[in-house]
């Protein structure tokens, strides 16, 4: 009697995926992204491409916070927390824009960061209520901090987009160019996507942080393209049409590079890739 040999597991060295070495640790990421984005928000006279880099960092930070929280299972799906961050972002942007005129030096608006800080506080309060034993009791470790970070990242991203589109942070210009043109709806939904989609799409047992973050950067590239088109349409940039065009070129480059990197990382790290062929029709 022959005994079927047990299947010998081939011991393969874990495949090294493409790595994407931005600040690796989560706290470092938050600090660096937050500080750079905050500095870029204050200087409104910068060209749109640099604001685009700030936007990319802010959204990456938001995506990281979403990932950190959603790992524990929210019960309502990943999208809810991304939408929460963007909702807070709009309220924070309103507060920031309202106080922006105070302490203004030429093209510098340091007071706009009040909105970011206020939103951090509201995020912290909502985190305490969501995690508190006597209230919603979600029991997710460090949810308070994650919600605070989400509020701040959402506000920074929203303010950076507004700054790209209007070239200033004056409330009247924002109402004319962003709110009444309806661009705010586009910004709202795309900010949501940049924060919630990466983890929502990549989650699972084999999720890897660096791979997930590639998706966020890629979506930010698409946002940059859209912002560039809107900027050309609005014609509000002090640098003329070149500003919008350079933002579009930057966005396309970011998108192509990171989309290729993500697909390559997926192909490298999966067990096998097989084609299913065309769908067969029943005869």
């Amino acid at each position, binding site marked *: 009697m022959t005994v079927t040999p047990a299947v010998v597991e081939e011991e393969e060295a874990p495949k090294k995926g493409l790595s994407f070495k931005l600040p690796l640790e989560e706290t470092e990421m938050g600090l660096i992204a937050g500080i750079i984005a905050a500095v870029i928000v204050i200087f409104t006279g910068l060209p749109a491409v640099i604001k685009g880099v700030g936007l990319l960092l802010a959204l990456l930070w938001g995506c990281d916070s979403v990932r950190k929280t959603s790992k524990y299972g929210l019960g309502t799906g990943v999208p809810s927390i991304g939408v929460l961050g963007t909702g807070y972002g709009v309220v924070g942007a309103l507060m920031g824009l309202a106080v922006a005129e105070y302490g203004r030096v030429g093209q510098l608006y340091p007071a706009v960061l009040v909105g970011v800080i206020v939103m951090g506080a509201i995020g912290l309060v909502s985190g305490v209520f969501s995690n508190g034993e*006597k209230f919603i009791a979600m029991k997710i470790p460090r949810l308070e901090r994650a919600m605070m970070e989400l509020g701040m990242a959402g506000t920074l991203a929203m303010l950076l987009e507004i700054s790209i589109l209007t070239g200033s942070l004056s409330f009247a210009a924002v109402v004319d160019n962003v709110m009444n043109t309806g661009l705010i709806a586009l910004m709202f939904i795309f900010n949501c996507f940049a924060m919630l989609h990466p983890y929502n799409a990549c989650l699972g047992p084999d999720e890897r942080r660096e791979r997930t973050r590639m998706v966020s950067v890629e979506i930010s590239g698409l946002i940059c393209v859209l912002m560039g088109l809107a900027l050309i349409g609005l014609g509000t940039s002090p640098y003329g049409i070149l500003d919008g065009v350079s933002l579009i070129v930057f966005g396309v480059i970011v998108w192509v590079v990171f989309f290729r990197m993500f697909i390559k990382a997926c192909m490298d790290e999966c067990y096998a890739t097989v084609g299913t062929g065309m769908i067969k029709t029943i005869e």
Partner: protein
Amino acid sequence: MEPVMILIVGYVVIGGLLASLGAHLLPVGGAPAAMGTATGIATGTVQIMLGAVLTGLFTAASVATFTDSLLLVSLSGALGATVMICVVMFMANVLYAFGCGVVPVSGRVEVDPITKEPQAPYKTPQTDGHGVPNVVFVSGTMGGFIGGFGGALMYYALLNYAHFSAGTAAVVAFSIFVANAILAAYNIRGTIEGFHDPKFKRLPKALVSSLAVSLLCGIVVVLATIILGGAL
């Protein structure tokens, strides 16, 4: 500080509380409902509430262009949201009945509390109900009405008391609404059928959280209004 500013905070808080209450009344099925193994609409609380309240804000904004009546604007928002949620629930039922071949049945109660129809014999074993049965439909209609009313109330306060432009008022009202609806969604944890669901008893916890967050958001809006001088 003018009394109008207190009115803004008051309406934002009421709107937030109504958002939280409305979210608890909706038939949320989540991922299990997508496979036909739970009662409700096959997506999360946030998406259902967003769809309903956006429609509500559209109708409220249209009505607000030719009237200053608080009740009329709020009720039109409520009706818009109700119509939206009813259409979604009806289409979900059509798809479940004719697409999946399951009957709408509640998984949480033995007998329908409103029509007294038996539920248990029609339920597929090992599942948690299917589709949108009568009691759930009624509860969802109420949820859409209450949520839409809350959203339109916030929109009215921001438009007429804080003197924001229509676009700004809609986006800010929507954002505050979303924050409250999501806190309610965390309280629900996945799926809920409506007012007859045991999870509905957790409502006060969400209302307290909602009160705190919408109060803070209301204060932020009022501060912004005062600083901007009510001109925008």
